[in-house]
C-alpha cells in the first residue's frame, strides 16, 4: 500500500459511530516500548537507529501478528506524505520532523499504528471511534503480547517497561480521549473543566496533541500517571471521569437550545452557509465553522449531514491532504481556494 492510497479511504475512527459519538470523537491508547540491550534514541547513533529499524521492521511485517501491517520508512516519503500521516494521527509531529532512520507500521483500517524510532524504539497506538477504551486496550494488548514473541522489551520488575522519559515509565500507557466540547466552550465553561481535570492529574491538549491549540473546540484528555497502577485501573479511572465531562457538555448544549435557540440556530446555519458557498477558506476558519456545524447536527438544528462526512472534512481539509488530492505543492492562498471547493463539493452531494 502507498501513502496516497489513504486518500481513497478514511480511518475507522472517523466513522463517528462509536458509543457517545455526539461528544467523543475517538479513543486512543498508546504503549511505549524499548528494546532490551539497545541504547535509547536519546543517545543512539545513526548506525544504532538503522540497526533498530532493520531489526524491528521484518518483525512488524511478518504475518503472525493479530493485524497485518504495512511498513513505511519515513526517509523514503516526501514531507507532504509524512505530514499527511500526521494529519491522519498515524504518526506524531515530532516523528515527522525528526531525522535519521525511522518509520511506521500501519494496519489497513488505520486503527493500529506502530512508530519505530520515535522517542522510544516502539510506540504502539490504537484508535477507535467514540468511547471504546476497553476495546482499544484489548487490541493494543494483543498486539503487544504478540510482539513480545519476537522482541525482547526493556523491563524491570520495579519500574515496569523502561522508557526514555521517566513520565512514561511503568505501563508506558497513555490514553487520549478526543472530545468535541463546543457548548462548554461557547458558554465559557472550559476553564472549569480544565481545572478540575488538571487537579485529577489529567492533561488536556488540542487536536494534534502536544503543544497544539484546541482547534474547533476539540480537546484531548489524557492520563499523566503511568507507574504504580495497572493498565485496567488507569482505564477504569478515566472511564469514571469522562461521563462527567459528557454530562456537562450535554447540559450546556441543551441549555443553549432552550435559552438561546436563535443564537444557536444562527451560528449553525451561518456556518453552513459559509461552508457551502465560500470561495476561499483558511484551515482555522473551516475548523471553526465545521465545529459549529457539527454541534448543529448533533442537536438536530440541521439534518441530513452524516457525522462521518463532518469528521472526514476536518481531516481532508488539512494542508497535506489537500496537496495530495491536488497532486502538487500549493501555496497557502491556493490551498484556501482548493479547501473551499473541496468542502463545497462534499456538502453539495448531500
Amino acid at each position, binding site marked *: 500500500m502507498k501513502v496516497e492510497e489513504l486518500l481513497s479511504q478514511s480511518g475507522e475512527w472517523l466513522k463517528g459511530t462509536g458509543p457517545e459519538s455526539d461528544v467523543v470523537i475517538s479513543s486512543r491508547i498508546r504503549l511505549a516500548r524499548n528494546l532490551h540491550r539497545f541504547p535509547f534514541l536519546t543517545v543512539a547513533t545513526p548506525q544504532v537507529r538503522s540497526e533498530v529499524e532493520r531489526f524491528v521492521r521484518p518483525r512488524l511485517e511478518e504475518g503472525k501478528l493479530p493485524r497485518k501491517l504495512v511498513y513505511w520508512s519515513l526517509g523514503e516519503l516526501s514531507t507532504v506524505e509524512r505530514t499527511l500521516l500526521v494529519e491522519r494521527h498515524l504518526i506524531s509531529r515530532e516523528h515527522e520532523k525528526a531525522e535519521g532512520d525511522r518509520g511506521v507500521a500501519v494496519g489497513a483500517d488505520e486503527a493500529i499504528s506502530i512508530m519505530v524510532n520515535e522517542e522510544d524504539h516502539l510506540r504502539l497506538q490504537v484508535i477507535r471511534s467514540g468511547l471504546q477504551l476497553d476495546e482499544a486496550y484489548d487490541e493494543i494488548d494483543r498486539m503487544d503480547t504478540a510482539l513480545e514473541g519476537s522482541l525482547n522489551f526493556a523491563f524491570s520488575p520495579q519500574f515496569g517497561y523502561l522508557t*526514555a522519559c521517566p513520565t512514561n515509565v511503568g505501563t508506558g500507557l497513555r490514553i487520549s480521549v478526543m472530545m468535541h466540547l463546543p457548548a462548554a466552550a461557547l458558554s465559557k465553561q472550559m476553564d472549569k473543566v480544565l481545572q478540575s481535570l488538571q487537579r485529577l492529574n489529567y492533561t488536556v491538549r488540542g487536536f494534534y496533541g502536544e503543544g497544539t491549540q484546541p482547534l474547533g473546540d476539540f480537546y484531548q484528555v489524557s492520563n499523566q500517571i503511568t507507574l504504580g497502577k495497572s493498565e485496567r485501573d488507569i482505564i477504569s479511572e478515566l472511564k469514571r471521569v469522562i461521563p462527567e465531562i459528557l454530562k456537562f457538555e450535554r447540559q450546556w448544549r441543551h441549555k443553549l437550545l432552550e435559552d438561546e435557540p436563535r443564537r444557536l440556530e444562527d451560528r449553525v446555519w451561518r456556518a453552513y452557509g459559509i461552508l457551502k458557498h465560500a470561495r476561499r477558506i483558511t484551515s482555522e476558519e473551516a475548523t471553526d465553522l465545521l465545529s459549529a456545524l457539527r454541534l448543529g447536527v448533533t442537536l438536530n438544528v440541521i439534518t441530513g449531514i452524516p457525522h462521518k462526512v463532518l469528521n472526514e472534512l476536518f481531516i481532508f481539509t488539512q494542508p497535506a491532504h489537500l496537496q495530495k488530492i491536488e497532486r502538487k505543492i500549493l501555496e*497557502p492562498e491556493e490551498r484556501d481556494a482548493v479547501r473551499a471547493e473541496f468542502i463545497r463539493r462534499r456538502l453539495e452531494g448531500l
Partner: protein
Amino acid sequence: MNCEKCHKNHATIHLTAIENGVKREAHLCDECARQTGAISNFNFSIGSLLGGLMEPVKTPKMNQVRCPECGITYSEFKTKARLGCANDYEVFRSELLRLLEKVHGSTQHAGKTPHTVDAHIRKENELIRLKRDLDSVVKSEDFEKAAEIRDRIKTLELELNR
C-alpha cells in the same frame, strides 16, 4: 490575517504584551515568530518541567555520575529529561525514585509483565498488584471479592517462598 513581518504567510501566532500599562499586539506566522524568538518564550518543554521537579543533588559529584553503558551523566539527564538506556534506571536509581514519587506518586510498577520475564518475577508483580487491589476492594466493602483476592495472595506467597 497575514503576518506583520513577512506579509506573506498567514499569521498563526497572536501575541499580546502589556508593557508599562500599554497593550501591544503582534500577529506573526510560525516562521517569523520562531525567527524573532517570540515563540520560544512560550515553548514550555517537558525538560524544564521535569528539571524543576528534581531536587538539587546532595553532592556535586552526583552530577558527574556516568552510566557505563550509554555514557550519559546525571547532569545531562537533568537537562534533557531523557534517559540514555535501560541501565540508567539503576545508575541514577536513588534520584529517580524521588522523581518518580513526585511525578507518579509511586515507585513500583503494578501493571503488565511481559511473558518473557521469568515466572518468579511475574508472580511477585502480581502479588504487588493484588495487595493494592485488596486495599481498594476492602474500602469499597466488597468482601466476597476481598476473600477471593486473599486466597490468591496466599497461594502466590506460598509458591514464592518455596
